[in-house]
């Protein structure tokens, strides 16, 4: 009974998501007649897929050793480092780009250092720069997803491997975990990179680095060719659907079973210590240096921020928390339903928002709602809803592998002792999923804090969120104040993220 109502709720949710994502694109398509692709669109499609693939491969390939090293080693400040390394994912795009340029730009630290020792300068602009920035954004996400995977391996498995003297515990214990979590992580990263356009264009060095999202932006902003935007959005959906299907093929169901929740103490092989130290140091430097640059550039103007910034900060905070609550609820329902039914359709629905262009979603909603209500009356609810929708795929990805384990390990027991409904949620589901739930809620809140897509279309002048104020400041020469407001934004996002993440880890058994 409980099973059926869960499936029905999940089905309705999936329908709602599909309506929002596809319905908005349809609303655009209905605005005009036919549209066809231009020759430049094909090269945009090629570039979009190429950069997303390369960025995904690099992010994942670097995340595996980083997560493994962090899992194996214990050192002072480890928890803080893990927490802090999540921050790049939360940065507003343009802030991150400016932070990266402080290190790798034409007059960045790296080039100054190279010059001082007489080496030739490197240029960040081009495909390499796009990939570098995408790895900077997504390595933390991949590392956290994998770290969660490693932490979910019951300690008993490693003990067993030791007792049996298995020649390669990696192959028998860790590899299956990777096969269960890595494709999902890769999928999320691929889809994030798919809809990138400020990074791609700014660091790509010119119109060669045109992504589909930029083409959509142009179609809606300058040409107001809604039919063309809808066509381009449809291509983005098709790529997304192909990627979801492909990732599902490579995903192995987790097969390790439950354990006794003991903290895993891996006996790290002595001879690999140096390797792990190098991996952790490199990853920490790569992720933390640009963050330090953001901090240093933002501090001077922090005391001179205009009043609008503080009001916007408060507004952003409560909107982020509301949006995270919505997103967590939806993701929990969908992940549990997929864990039970293994429905590919439900899974696709949960991942669908990642392929949606924020601009198409916003414009479509505007076209649908505008004739009935004043846009400023719905600006805040619509923004909260869209932000919840946009962070749903990440949450779903984090929850799904552990929801599958939970189902496989405890479902029969729970049914046998008649644990159901609210009691099951309280005593079984929430505690067992506390870790990914906390991390996910933190991510959702922080992502909502930083989002700029929809609010810009709906909000009137005094409904601005913090990211919108950052943009308004830098649009009026006030780059120092913009940097300070961005620092405030990053700090608040990070505090929200850290509170939820730590809360989740505390509540975990």
């Amino acid at each position, binding site marked *: 009974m409980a099973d059926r109502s869960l499936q029905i709720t999940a089905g309705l949710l999936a329908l709602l998501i599909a309506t929002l994502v596809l319905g908005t694109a349809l609303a655009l398509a209905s605005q005009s007649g036919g549209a066809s692709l231009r020759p430049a669109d094909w090269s945009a499609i090629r570039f979009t897929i190429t950069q997303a693939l390369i960025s995904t491969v690099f992010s994942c390939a670097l995340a595996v050793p980083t997560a493994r090293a962090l899992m194996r080693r214990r050192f002072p400040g480890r928890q803080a480092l893990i927490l802090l390394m999540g921050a790049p994912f939360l940065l507003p795009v343009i802030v991150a780009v400016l932070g990266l340029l402080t290190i790798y730009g034409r007059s960045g630290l790296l080039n100054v250092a190279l010059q001082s020792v007489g080496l030739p300068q490197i240029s960040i602009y081009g495909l390499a720069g796009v990939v570098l920035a995408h790895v900077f954004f997504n390595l933390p996400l991949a590392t956290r997803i994998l770290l969660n995977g490693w932490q979910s391996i019951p300690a008993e498995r490693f003990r067993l491997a030791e007792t049996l003297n298995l020649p390669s515990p990696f192959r028998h214990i860790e590899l299956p975990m990777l096969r269960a979590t890595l494709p999902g992580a890769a999928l999320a990263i691929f889809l994030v990179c798919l809809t990138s356009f400020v990074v791609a264009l700014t660091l790509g060095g010119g119109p060669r680095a045109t992504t589909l999202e930029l083409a959509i932006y142009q179609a809606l902003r300058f040409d107001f060719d809604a039919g063309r935007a809808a066509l381009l959005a449809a291509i983005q959906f098709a790529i997304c659907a192909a990627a979801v299907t492909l990732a599902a093929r490579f995903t192995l169901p987790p097969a390790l079973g439950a354990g006794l929740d003991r903290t895993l103490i891996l006996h790290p092989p002595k001879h690999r210590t140096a390797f792990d130290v190098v991996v952790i140091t490199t990853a920490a430097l790569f992720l933390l240096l640009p963050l330090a640059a953001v901090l240093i550039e933002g501090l001077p103007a922090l005391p001179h921020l205009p009043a609008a910034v503080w009001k916007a900060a408060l507004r952003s905070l409560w909107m982020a928390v509301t949006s995270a609550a919505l997103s967590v609820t939806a993701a929990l329902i969908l992940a549990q339903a997929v864990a039970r039914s293994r429905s590919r359709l439900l899974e696709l629905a949960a991942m669908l928002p990642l392929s949606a262009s924020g601009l198409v979603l916003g414009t479509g909603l505007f076209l649908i709602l505008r004739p009935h209500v004043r846009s400023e009356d719905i600006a805040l609810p619509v923004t909260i809803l869209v932000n919840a929708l946009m962070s749903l795929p990440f949450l779903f990805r984090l929850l799904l592998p552990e929801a599958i384990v939970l189902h496989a390990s405890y479902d029969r027991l729970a049914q046998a002792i008649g644990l159901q409904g609210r009691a099951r949620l309280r005593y079984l589901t929430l505690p067992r999923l506390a870790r990914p739930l906390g991390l996910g809620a933190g991510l959702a809140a922080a992502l909502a804090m930083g989002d700029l897509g929809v609010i810009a279309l709906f909000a009137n002048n005094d409904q601005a969120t913090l990211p919108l104020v950052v*943009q308004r*400041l830098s649009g009026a020469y006030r780059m120092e104040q913009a940097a300070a407001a961005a620092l405030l934004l990053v700090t608040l996002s990070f505090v929200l993220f850290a509170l939820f993440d730590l809360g989740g880890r505390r509540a975990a058994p």
Partner: protein
Amino acid sequence: MKPIHLALAFLSLGQMAMADAPVLNVLTYDSFAAEWGPGPAIAKGFEAECACKINYITAGDGAAVLARLKMEGAGSEADVVLGLDTTLTESARATGLFAPLASIAPNDLPIPYSDANFEPFDWGWFAFVYDNTKLTNPPKSFKELAASTLKIVIEDPRSSTPGLGLVMWVKDAYGADSANIWKDLADNIVTVTPSWDEAYGLFLKGEADMVLSYTTSPAYHLIDKKDPTKSAAPFDEGHYMQVEVAGKLASSKQQPLADQFLAYLAADAAQAVIPTTNWMYPAKTPAEGLPKGFETLIKPLKSLLYSPAEAEGQRQAAVEEWQTALSK
């Protein structure tokens, strides 16, 4: 009276007061209406003489303003649309949403400009801005720039009005030869950004020697920051202009009020606010003249500007030419 009744009474009083004063909705871009933009001062000045209330509805930039208007069509709640530039006005006129202006105010633009639907409220010359402590001998033309090893950062004409202005500049100055200019400039371009603020931010960070901005940009640094290190490079070909305009919608139920606002916008009080908030030239120089510091700016001898119809006709081909030349 119970507290709840008292509260209700106040609430209805408030609503009555609001219902009494007519509201004029002005659709404009973000940085115009922002706390630090010209919007608040102009609203305050106008409200003092109109017994009305100004409500700014905002979109990201000039192009976003037009996109929003096209989405809303005749159902738009806006009375006045403010912040389109002349590369957008033809497309805006084609919507049929704009009413003719009640009166055409005189302006001081460097080249004759008059439009039955759109009133200019400010303007500027596009220019490459540089740091005069690092670059002592700036290029004097696109050809000199292309022949140099200087690095520039520009905006994308597909997503930004200054980016589109640059493409029009090269087209107007070089006509059929413009594709070659772009080919020669390709190795000078560090990168292309989606909008003006990213490009300017990159320039201030030292990522490029020059950035496409306005001849008035150095005035911001000089007046607001007491920083004289930024200059604009005069080009022999002349400088393309951006003219920002306002118009009223035919669907507005506040026609006389809209006319009154447009007249206020063209007069001294509002025009005097423009230079140090929008960092552009006022369409009509106010009686007290320009703020101190503006006299240090370069004054191009030749101004370039396509008529709105020419600009609309050139736009797509010019942008495609730009894209092809830079994609090789």
